[in-house]
C-alpha cells in the first residue's frame, strides 16, 4: 500500500446558500492517477475548488501530505505543491505563452528550468508559440499551456478539470499521452466526463452524485460493472 497524499474527510461546501458538497470523502494515494466521475452538477469541480481553497469547506478536513490545509488560502495551498488546471483552463489571454509560464514560476532556478525544458519537450507547440499571445492559441494548445503551467514549480499533486472538454478527438489523444507522461512524475487527480479517456488513464476512481461520494475502487473493476456505469454515469 502506498501512502496517502491527499485526503478529504466528510467535506461540506456551500456556494451561496446551496449545499454543493455533502460529506464528500476522497483519498488519493501517492503516484496513482485517480479519476473523479459523475454527472454534470455532481460536485466534481467544486471538489477540486475546495481542495484548492477557492470554495473553502464549511466542515470536514482536507489533508495534504499529512498537513491540514482546510482553511488555507488558495495561494498557500498552491505553494505546498498542488497544481491546478481549472475547467476553463485559466489562461491569461493577453499575455504571451512565455509570460503565462513566467507568472507561474515561483523561482527561476535550475530546477524550474529543467521542468520547463521537460514540458516544452512534451508540448513542442508551446515552444513554437512562446511569444504569441495565449488568447490566439487553439483550444488544445491552451489546454497544454494550462497543464504545463500547473507543474512548472515543484508539484506533488496536480488537479486537472476536464481536459478533454471541447477538444477534437485527435487532440484529446495528445492530451492523454501527455498526462500519461506527467503521471510518472507526479500524482494526478482528473475530473473527466469522457469515459474512454478516464478508462485509459485512471487507476482509481471515485464517483460523485448529488454532492456525495457514491462509490470508489479500482478503475478495472468499474469497467466491468455495467450497473454502476448506467446508474451514475448514464452509459452502457
Amino acid at each position: 500500500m502506498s501512502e496517502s497524499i491527499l485526503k478529504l474527510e466528510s467535506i461540506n461546501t456551500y456556494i451561496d446558500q446551496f449545499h454543493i458538497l455533502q460529506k464528500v470523502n476522497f483519498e488519493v494515494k501517492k503516484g496513482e492517477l485517480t479519476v473523479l466521475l459523475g454527472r454534470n452538477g455532481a460536485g466534481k469541480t467544486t471538489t477540486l475548488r475546495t481542495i484548492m481553497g477557492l470554495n473553502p469547506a464549511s466542515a470536514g478536513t482536507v489533508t495534504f501530505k499529512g498537513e491540514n490545509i482546510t482553511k488555507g488560502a488558495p495561494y498557500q495551498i498552491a505553494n505546498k505543491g498542488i497544481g491546478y488546471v481549472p475547467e476553463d483552463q485559466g489562461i491569461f489571454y493577453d499575455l504571451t505563452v512565455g509570460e503565462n509560464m513566467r507568472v507561474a514560476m515561483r523561482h527561476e532556478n535550475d530546477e524550474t528550468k529543467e521542468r520547463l525544458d521537460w514540458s516544452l519537450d512534451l508540448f513542442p507547440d508551446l515552444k513554437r508559440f512562446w511569444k504569441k499571445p495565449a488568447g490566439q492559441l487553439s483550444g488544445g494548445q491552451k489546454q497544454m499551456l494550462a497543464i504545463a503551467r500547473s507543474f512548472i514549480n515543484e508539484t506533488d499533486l496536480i488537479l486537472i478539470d476536464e481536459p478533454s472538454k471541447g477538444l477534437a478527438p485527435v487532440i484529446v489523444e495528445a492530451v492523454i499521452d501527455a498526462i500519461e507522461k506527467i503521471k510518472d512524475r507526479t500524482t494526478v487527480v482528473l475530473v473527466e466526463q469522457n469515459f474512454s479517456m478516464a478508462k485509459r488513464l485512471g487507476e482509481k476512481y471515485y464517483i460523485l452524485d448529488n454532492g456525495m461520494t457514491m462509490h470508489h475502487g479500482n478503475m478495472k473493476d468499474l469497467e466491468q460493472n455495467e450497473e454502476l456505469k448506467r446508474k451514475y454515469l448514464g452509459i452502457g
Partner: protein
Amino acid sequence: MNSIIETKDLTIAFGGHVAVNQVSVQLPENQFTSVIGPNGAGKTTFFNLLSGQLKPTSGQVFYQGKEITDWSVVERTRAGIGRSFQLTNVFPNVTVLENIRLAIQSREKVRFNLFRHFKSYTAFEEEAHELLDIVLLDEKAESLAIHLSHGEKRKLEIAMLLALETKLLLLDEPTAGMSLEEVPTILRVIENIKKQEDRTIVLIEHKMEMVLDLSDRMMVLFNGELLAEGTPEEIMKNETVQEAYLGGDPNERVHT
C-alpha cells in the same frame, strides 16, 4: 420553405481568436433547429450575433429577408427576435413577478408613460402570474429574483422570453445546471411553444436525447465553423460530425 433568419459568411474575431468563422446558414421559419457543438465551438457567440449583443467582424445577418447586421439589440427584439441567456441574466433586486411584468410592458409598448401608476395595468400582472404558472414558479412571484436557485432563474429566463411573444426564440442551454426534477418542466414548456403557430425556435443544447427528440433540423458548430447542417438523421449519419463531435464510439460517451 421561407427562412426566418439567414447568415452569410458570418465571422467574428476577438483579437486573434476567430470565434465564429464564415458561417452561412438559413434557418427555416416555424421549425425547430438545434445548434450543437463542443464547448468553445462558438454557439453562444453565434447567438449573440443573431440577437445583436455582438456585431460581426464581417458577414451579414438577415431576418425575414431584411438585412439586420447593423441593427441594435433593441431593434431586433422589437422586430421579433427574443433570446434567453446561458448565464442567467435577470433583474436581481426586483420581484420575480416584476421581471416578467417588465417584459410584458415592453411587448405592449407601454414605455414612456410616467403619469399612470404601474399597478393600474392589472392585465400585465395577471398575465405575468399565468406565465409563472406555466414554468411552475408562481409561488415565488413575490420573491426577489436574486434569491432564486439557479434552476429557478432559468425558468424565469424562459418565462420572460415567453412574455415577449417573439416570432423567433433563441434558447441558450435552457436546462444547464438544473436539477433532474426540473428538466421535464422546461421540456414541456419548450414542446408547448413548438406546438404554437408562427414560432421558430433555435436551441443550444448539450443533451443529445433532448435535441434529437425535439429538432426538425440541426446545425453543428466546431471551432467556430459550421460543420454540418440538416435533419437529425442526416447529422447523425454524417461522418465528419461523428468523428469531430461525438468522438468515436458513441456508447462510451457520458451523456449528461
